[in-house]
């Protein structure tokens, strides 16, 4: 499309990527801070004041899921998921493109499937209306899964077709959109 070469549109699209990445980073930092403060605070409360809130334990376990899914989303963004990367690193040119298409495309499909079945799980839980902790229903805590796997599916699909310029060497971990 013609717009794709328009520098204005390109800069705008990059701006959106940048904003999305910063939002991911900010949310992750908040989740980690919450995890550290609640987990640590719970111990201080229990040891120092012999008191505590009885739903912190399930809350913490949900936070672990959310931290894990956000971390996995970022790992997909920075191409840092664990795998055997010796062979793709040795290739160049067309073989590299084909191998990347296969491996990353496969990951995109699997993530898509996991996102789909996660939606199914959320809907099942939504019907049964169980409570995870305090007033929060279980299905809300599960939303991290369709979100995380969905975003990862998109990331892998983009990398499969080579949208990111530094897709194969994205080990620098910097904001590509900046």
């Amino acid at each position, binding site marked *: 499309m013609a717009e794709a070469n328009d520098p204005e549109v390109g800069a705008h699209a990059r701006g959106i990527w940048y904003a999305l990445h910063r939002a991911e980073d900010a949310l992750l930092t908040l989740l980690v801070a919450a*995890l550290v*403060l609640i987990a640590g605070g719970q111990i201080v409360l229990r040891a120092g004041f012999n008191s505590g809130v009885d739903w912190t334990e399930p809350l913490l376990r949900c936070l672990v899921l959310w931290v894990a899914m956000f971390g*996995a*989303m970022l790992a997909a963004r*920075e191409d840092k*998921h664990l795998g055997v990367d*010796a*062979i793709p690193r040795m290739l160049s040119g067309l073989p590299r493109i084909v191998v990347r298409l296969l491996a990353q495309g496969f990951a995109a499909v*699997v993530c898509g499937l996991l996102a789909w079945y996660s939606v199914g799980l959320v809907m099942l839980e939504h019907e049964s209306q169980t409570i995870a902790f305090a007033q929060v229903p279980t299905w809300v805590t599960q939303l991290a899964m369709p979100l995380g796997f969905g975003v990862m599916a998109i990331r892998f699909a983009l990398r499969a077709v080579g949208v990111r310029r530094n897709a194969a060497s994205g080990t620098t971990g910097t904001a590509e959109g900046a």
Partner: protein
Amino acid sequence: MIWLIALALLLLAFAGAPFFALIAAVALLGLNASDYDLIIAAAEFFRITDVPVLIAIPLFTIAGYLLGESKAPQRLVRLTDALFGWMPGGLAVVALMSCALFTAFTGATGVTIVALGAVLFPALIQARYPTKFTLGLITTSGSLGLLFAPSLPLIIYAVVAQQLNTTPPVGVDEMFRAGLLPGLMMLVLLAIYSVWSGRGRARARVKFSGREALAAAWDARWEIPLPVVVVGGIYGGWFAPSEAAAVTALYVSITVLAIRREISLSKVPQVCRDAMVLVGAILVILGCALALTNYLIDADIPGQLFEVIREHISSRFVFLLVLIVFLLFFGMLLEGYPAIIILVPIVLPIAMRYGVDPVHFGIMFLAILQLGFFTPPLGMNLFISSYRFNRPVLEVVRACVPFFFIVLFCVLVITFWPWLSLVLVR
């Protein structure tokens, strides 16, 4: 058909497909073949929230990354140097001990080589240790400490083994206690070798100075309570592992960010991101493996494998030898955490049919993994060292040879002498 799928997945693995996607694919295919509704795969993944001890993983990881970014590694080296630097080969012993302590807190993720290597490498070279020895020592030390509490591999092994409902069960506490003596054995043997190869250089080193020891201890006053309280608390049974992790994370955050202020607050998102990328990568593999483990048990895959293996291997001795080679290869290929999550559900049930205790198996497994980290040609730490110290990989490999055989000896002792792992447990 099954072989075709297996071949396709193997090719995808070597094409660089992420482990978690491969595991999820096997789980989905297996569950589908057994006529399950595939929503069960998502439900099994969600069981991540049913394992309380998993809280320890993000907490220890963030604490480790914060420590690694702070000046704690320098202070740790200064303190151990003040205490042990006067010995012949003292600085090498300092390197071993500080790396072991640091790895116990950060997991063997290469952080040790990057954070401590930066301090130790120039110090060792300056003290006239040969480059080759220094390179081998640091690369080996990068995974030393894996067997000491509160290292993440010990926790993850216990979590994975618990999914298999073994008798006797495997607790995190038991793994912590079981790793102590084997870990000390590795540390002592490596220290003896280092002292032996450092003989003759001893006189160039400093004498013990009480003043410097006190100054170094004062310098590290915020870090010293950490191993004492956490490691002491765990081995003394005051803390559950997740509680120890919570205390560590909160304490490190406060001391590094508020008291010492060695990491500016604007850098915190970056550190969180680096740490949680690792946590996410590990936990997603674990979640997918939860879906797979149930299928493996349902279909009794380990049982069928055992039948096949038993036709060829009848003695436990031969089985253990074959196992070492097998695990060394896959440990090198799968780089630590994925190896634990992928291999334990398949191999542990088989090993138990040969009469191996699950706790002993865990220590043996992790000791082999530790070796795998610097086993050529693919051991991860070889590449980290090569990159970090700007040396050809082949030079690093050669430098590691004597250390490799020492750790291999330890692996053999650990494997064929279960008492060493089990005496503090049972």
